[in-house]
């Protein structure tokens, strides 16, 4: 029942990744991953929210009555998201304008309330903090992979608009991989997001299958075993 710290890290980043395995928070994941910079921006905001909400929920876990815990979590998450939204509006205004409604919508990201309910409300503060950070990084990783894939296919660049996130020197970060007049427009559209996400999930499952220490018996083998024993 009590996962070790390594388990928490591995769960968040890979085994129980919120994007690839739990499939939580797909709405911002698919809507905002059009370019890598958007993805990084939303990923950082979500990670911060997860970290802070997990810490706060864990701190009040002995005080909040179980009957009203969900509204309490929602209030906590909403306050944190509001603070982050104001901060982004102040310091990353260009990015804030692009991400638009999806920053306040972090509130509705099921991954956050899911971690509050499933993990933070049952674990100590440091463990909840680690879990929030790792889940956030896992989510950010998927966002960045998706953003990079779609940006390269869709407009042939990488880190376009990076100055919105890193200031003026960010202009140097933009990489033009191929001339963008032949960009694959579908990759930037919602169907492209779903397809790229499907490919990422397939890739993760493929990696899992090929790195399993003990290969699980295939359907035919287990059926053969069953018929031998019967």
């Amino acid at each position, binding site marked *: 029942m009590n996962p070790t710290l390594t388990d928490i890290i591995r769960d968040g980043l890979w085994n129980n990744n919120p994007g690839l395995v739990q499939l939580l928070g797909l709405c911002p994941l698919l809507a905002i991953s059009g370019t890598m910079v958007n993805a990084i921006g939303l990923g950082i905001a979500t990670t911060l929210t997860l970290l802070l909400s997990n810490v706060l929920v864990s701190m009040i876990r002995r005080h909040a009555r179980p009957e009203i815990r969900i509204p309490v979590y929602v209030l906590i998450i909403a306050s944190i998201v509001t603070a982050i939204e104001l901060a982004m509006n102040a310091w990353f205004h260009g990015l804030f304008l692009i991400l638009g409604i999806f920053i306040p919508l972090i509130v509705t990201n099921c991954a956050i309330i899911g971690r509050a309910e499933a993990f933070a409300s049952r674990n100590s503060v440091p463990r909840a903090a680690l879990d929030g950070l790792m889940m956030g990084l896992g989510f950010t990783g998927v966002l960045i992979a998706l953003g990079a894939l779609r940006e390269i296919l869709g407009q042939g660049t990488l880190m376009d608009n990076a100055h919105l996130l890193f200031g003026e020197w960010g202009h140097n970060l933009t990489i033009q991989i191929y001339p963008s007049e*032949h960009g694959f*427009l579908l990759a930037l559209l919602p169907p492209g997001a779903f397809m790229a996400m499907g490919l990422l999930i397939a890739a993760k499952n493929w990696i899992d299958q090929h790195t399993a220490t003990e290969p699980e018996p295939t359907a035919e083998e287990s059926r053969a075993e069953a018929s031998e024993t019967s």
Partner: protein
Amino acid sequence: MRFRTESSPHVIPAHSVGGVMQQVLMALVPGTLAMTWFFGWGVLVNVLLGVLFAVAFEAAMVAARKRPVMATLADNSAIVTGWLFALAIPPLAPFWVTLIGIAFAIIVAKHLYGGLGYNPFNPAMVGYVVVLVSFPREMALWPAATTLPESPLTLLQSLQTVLTGSLPGTQEWDAVTRATPLDAMREGLVSGRTVGEITASPLFGTFTETGWEWVGNFFLLGGLYLLFRRVIHWHIPVAVILGVAIPAGFFWLLDPDSFASPAFHVFSGAVIIGAFFIATDPVSASTTPLGRILYGAGIGVLIFVIRTWGGYPDAVAFAVLLMNMVAPTLDHLTRPRIFGRTRGGPPPGDGHA
């Protein structure tokens, strides 16, 4: 005299999959030749490339899925997919449009769903929609409809254009390409002109542009051949054409200045080839008689609705894909009554029989 006792099955299907697809390919020939006559050698070049890519991707995917390659290729379905895709795109579209479209058609729409017989969507139309939304500039390169001897490009020049993506010599795209009748109608109506003013331009013949009319007629010929050979049934094509013509006729009677005539709608763009060759795909279409009629009518109405109020000049591919989603439900809701039972009766094999 010897009476042979044969074991079942006693009724052998008249067509194998490969045989059916072969009939479809034969039926596509007249329309394809007509298109080549009016739109130049690029049509043939694209059909050749499309079939080549489709067979190559099919072979690669079948091999990757560890299935018998030659036996699968013998069902000819990849050839039909490649051919239909090539007819849907503009004749002078560069080769990589075909490559990407066919890759999506065969790899994503067909084999990721389990191969022939398991694909819920028509593969050729998935490929076409992918390139249509991704490369709007390349997908607008329809040449003016002339006759082959007057075509501005020879066979070799067409091949060069398709392979390099740029016209040979000093020719300009603007001189070679022209708006299709559907484009012209759409643009004209949007800019406030009446149907009468638009069709008065030399572009239009009796119903729509002369070339397009004849291409439609020759695809109709092929479609009638398929009907005659019982490869397809009448329900879907008739329902598609009526599904376009009836709403188009209704609005045309209401306001003939702002709505094109039903004949224009039926003979423009891809309605005829769509009704006989694309909507009748045995895998992704509905299979019960009533289901087929509803499926076809849905495609027809959607074509008219998207053409008239939607964002694209033609809509056969979108309409077919949307109705593909509905086909399983239609099949479920329109199951024919089992002989000897009431419609709401118990399922077979529950002891009441």
